Structure formats: C-alpha cells, structure tokens
C-alpha cells in the first residue's frame, strides 16, 4: 500500500512539473523570431503627407536641419524632428547632412537661438514611432526614419533626386544592435 501511494505521488509530481513547464514556455512557443536586419539600411527623410515638397538637395537639407530655413514653400513653418542623442539615425544625419558632431550641433543651436540666426529649434523624440506620429500630426514637420520604419502616414522625400529605395541614395544607417 505505501508503495502504491509513493508511485502515485511520483506520477502526480511528474504530470504537475510537465504542466508547469508547458505553461511557463507557452507564450514563447508560438512566437516567431523577429527578422534581424544585418545589412545597412537607407535613411529616409520624411515630411507630412500634406507637404508639397517632393525633392530636396543635400544643401537644402543641411539648411533645414541646421535651422537656417524657417518655412516651406507653402508657407508652413518648418518643425525639425530629431531622435535622441546616441541613436544611429541621428548620428547619420549629423554626420552626412549637418556635417557636425553632437557637440557642434548642440552649440550651433544654442548659439543660433541666442543670436536669432536659427529660426527653428528641433524637437527631440525617443523612438522612430514618435517621429512618425509627430510628422503625421504636424504639417510642417521634417524628420528621418529607417526605410523599414516607414509607413503610409508620412511621405519620404527624394534627396538629390533619389528616393530611399533608389540606387545611389546617399543616406545609410547601420543595422540596429540586437539586444
């Protein structure tokens, strides 16, 4: 009799353990791994859908991102949207468009706002989704996003007559580091 009880106890423990393991891993079992982008991606310059601008030269882009241009051709005030320091996208913009490092960029705006030379102060957002929503909500906003973060709520402008999907596009961003 005690033997039978022991056997039953072992069986019950085994079943309980298996059930617990199944439950613990259940949420991850059905999930597919996220695709890891390992190669460089193009960085798109995005504006509101209502913005008539389709193409910007690299020089115009530089003026916009350095706050030296205040309005679009349709009269809308330009609002510059940047991601937080440390983001690879921001680094690409500073390096390839503004041709500055982080410190120079910050000093440029501090100095410009103080002297009145800079007409636009950039808005800083934490995520690409934030950038996208901001550009969607503000008709005069301009920002940047990886091609993989684009959707139909914003419009990517051509840079030097080349779109982000075109060959020879100049703005590239390294892949996101996987965490």
């Amino acid at each position, binding site marked *: 009799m005690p033997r039978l009880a022991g056997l039953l106890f072992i069986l019950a423990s085994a079943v309980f353990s298996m059930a617990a393991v199944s439950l613990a891993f259940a949420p991850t079992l059905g999930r597919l791994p996220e695709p890891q982008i390992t190669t460089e991606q193009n960085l798109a310059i995005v504006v509101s859908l209502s913005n008539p601008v389709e193409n910007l030269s690299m020089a115009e882009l530089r003026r916009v991102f350095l706050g030296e241009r205040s309005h679009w051709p349709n009269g809308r005030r330009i*609002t510059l949207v940047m991601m937080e320091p440390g983001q690879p996208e921001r680094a690409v913009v500073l390096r390839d468009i503004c041709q500055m490092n982080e410190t120079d960029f910050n000093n440029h705006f501090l100095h410009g706002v103080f002297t009145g030379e800079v007409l636009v102060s950039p808005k*800083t957002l934490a995520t690409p989704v*934030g950038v996208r929503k901001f550009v969607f909500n*503000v008709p005069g906003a301009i920002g940047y996003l990886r091609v993989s973060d684009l959707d139909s709520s914003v419009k990517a402008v051509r840079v030097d007559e080349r779109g982000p999907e075109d060959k020879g596009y100049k703005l590239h961003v390294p892949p996101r580091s996987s965490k």
Partner: protein
Amino acid sequence: MNGQNTRARRPPLAGPAPLLDRVLALASPYNSSLLLLIVFLVVIVVGLFVVRDLHSTNVEAQKMYAGSVLGLHRIGELQYQAQETRRSTFYALTTNDSNLQLEYADQSREADRRVNEGIGEYLRQVHMPHEIEVGKRLQRDWSDYLSVRNELLASILEGSTKEAVNLDLKGGVPSFERVRQDLEEIKRLYDQQASEQLANVAATSRRTIFRLIGVLGITLTLASTSVWAIQRSKMLGTIQLAKLQMEFVASVSHELRTPLTVISSAADNIADGLVGGKDQVKRYGLAIRNQCRQITELVNQILLFAATKDRKNRYILRPLQVSQIMDSVRDNTAELVEGAGFVVEQRIESGLPWVMGDLSALSQCLQNLIVNAVKYSGESRWIGIRAFLHDSGEQSGKEISISVEDRGMGIDRLEMPHIFEPFYRGAAVSAAQIHGTGLGLSLAKNIAEAMGGTLSVVSELAVGSVFTLRLPMVEKQELEMASVNSEGDPTIRK
C-alpha cells in the same frame, strides 16, 4: 294511423325562461359539451387577443430599448468621446515633452475615431428625415471641429502654445459648441422617441389588463352560465322523466283497472248467483278470458320493454320468409282487427327473399304497429299492409320493406321526433283519452334495430300515417349456411 305515440303529451317545461328551456331541451343531448366548447372557444379567442397584446407590448418595449434607450446610451458615449477628443488635445498643452504630447494626440485621435464611428452608427439607425438631417449636420460640424483640432495639435506639437490657444478660441470653441448643440438635439430626439414609445407600452399594457379582466369576466360568466344551464337541463330532464313515469304508472294502472273491474264484476255476479244458464256463464267466462288476455298483453309489453332496456332480451335470429312473419301477425291480430270491424288490405310481393330475424320479435313489432293503427284510425276502418323489395341505396343492396298504413288522425309534425321515445304520448292522443303506455313504438323501433333493420314513419295530420319496417335480406351464402346447419343449430343469437 297513429297518434299512438303521439299519445302522451310531453309535460310543459317549468321555469321563468321558457325560450331558454326550449333551446336547452333541443340541445339537451349535447348541451354540456356544446356549452363547454363555446366557453373554450370564447376563452381561446379572447386569449389570442391578450397574447397578441402582450406580444405587442413586448415588441414596443424591445423597440424602446433598442431604439431609444440604446440610442441615449450611444449619444451619452458620443458626448463623452467628443469631450475626450477635446480634453486630450488640451492635455497636450500642459507639457513641453513632445513624446507625451504625442501620446495625448493619439488619445485625441482615438476618441475622435470613436465619435466618427458613433455618428456613422447613428446615421445607419435613423430613418426619419429630421433625424437624418441632424445626423448629417453633426457629421459636418464634427468634421469642421476636427480640422481645427488638427491645426491645434500641430501648433501644440510645434511648441506654439499661444498660437494654439488663439486658434482654439477663434475656431475650436465655436465649432465644438455646434457639435455639442447637435448632440443635445439628437439626445432630445431620443428622449422624445422614448417618451412616445413608453406611452405606447403603457397604453398596450393598460389594454392588456382590461382584456385580461374581460377574459376573466367572460370566462367566469360563461362558466357560471354553463354550469347553471347544465344543471337546469339535467333537472328539467329529471323532472320530465319523473312526470313521464308518473303518467306511465297512472296509464298502466288505468289499463289494469278496467279489465280488473270487469273481471271483478263478473266474479261478483257469479259468486252472488246472479248468473244463470249455460249461455250466460259462457258469456261471463269469455269476458273474463278477454280481460285476462288484455292484462297479460299489457304486462308482456312492459316486461318486454324492461328487458329491452336492460339488454336482457336475447333474440334468436334465423332465416325467415316474409309470409311466415305475416301469418304470425295476422293470427295474433285477427281477433282485434275483426272485432273492431277493420278491413285489412294486404299486398305481399311474390318471390320475396328471406330475411334474418326473430319470428316472435318481428311479429311483436308489426303487431304493435297494427294495434296502433286500430287505436288511432278514428272513424276510418281501413289498414293497409304491404311487403315489397326495396332498394336500400347502399352498397348492401336491397332490403325488405313491410309497411303498415292507416287513414287515421296522423301525427303532428312537431311531435314526430319524439314518437319513438319511451312513454311519449302526443297531446292529441292524451286529449282524446286514448289509452296506452307510450311503449309500443319504442319497443317496435328497438326490435327493428336489433334485427339490423330500421323503423320509419311518414305521417300527415288528419290524413294518416305509414310506418315502414325495413329489414336486410338474407344473402345467399347465409341462407346456404343456415340450411347446412339446420340439422344442428341454425340460429344466431343476438
């Protein structure tokens, strides 16, 4: 010929409602079932109205809930979401953090999406032109407000707080006020609709209550009436039967007393030595014998009737020739008929087929008819007896008809349905003081039916009556079977 069965008059019905009593008497065999059926039908009909009203109330209540209550709920939700759209936009003003401002913008847009859905839902639900017009106006005003709201959000996100505030004061406040007024109007419409539907539900409920009260009242009244009518009918039936039985007893007593008086007087005369001579004694003897026969006949009739009623009478059926029956009848009635000075005209078709029956019973049946003819012929002294083959009109083919005809007083048309009832005596017969028990025709009919036949009558007042006994003819196979078995037991007991 006969008033015989018309002999006893049905006693007048007592009570304050003779018309009702007549109706009840007419419907007496069916009255309980009939009245209950009427009650049942009336209750069913009124019940159907009540069920229809209840259904209607239910539908009204559902419509009120689906239309007005849910509508008011939807409008409440719309008002809340519209306020939420505006509120979330203002929350964005309270911070400089662009990330937080975006969250508020998202909340505002989510609320505005719900408002748009709500307006679409409202437009799908409404059908009245005024409602549609208000809905479309709301849609337009909401769209105007959203344009202002989008500009407002853009200004806030750009960091132009002052511009945002100015924009709201200039465009946002008035356009949102229009939206608010539209929503209030829709709410008023729903309120009005709900009030109307509530009034409908209340009216239908009131009607249902009145109808229910009506149903209960009608049911109670009809049930009471039915019980009263049934009880009354039974009571009348019982009283009538009792009266008939009393009449019967009186009649029988009278029938017995007359011969008994004769016998008693004859016996007294003989005992007192008043009768002398052989001829006189013979005459007294004959008188006593005749009266005894009359008494015996009467008693036999009563016993036969009682036996028929108790189903104790057993008939012995066997194939009979019509001539056999007629001979028996003639033998048994010769004395009566000749004594009363009647001429009997008898016509019997030759070659008539056989019939199946009990000779004694059939003879009794026809005797009753002839006795009636004698009793109710009045001044006429003629009786016609016919036997012939008759087409029954049914699949069974032909049958034998034996009719007894007289040219007597005839039977009143109103009394015809009752003449075969036991103890029944017609009014004219009673008035003419023609003696009888009221059993003759009832017995004759019972016998005819026991033989598988029928007894019918055609009569006209002051012209005469023809009573016809119809008997099924014996099939050839039955006849053969009877003849084969004739050495054993050729009869059928019924």
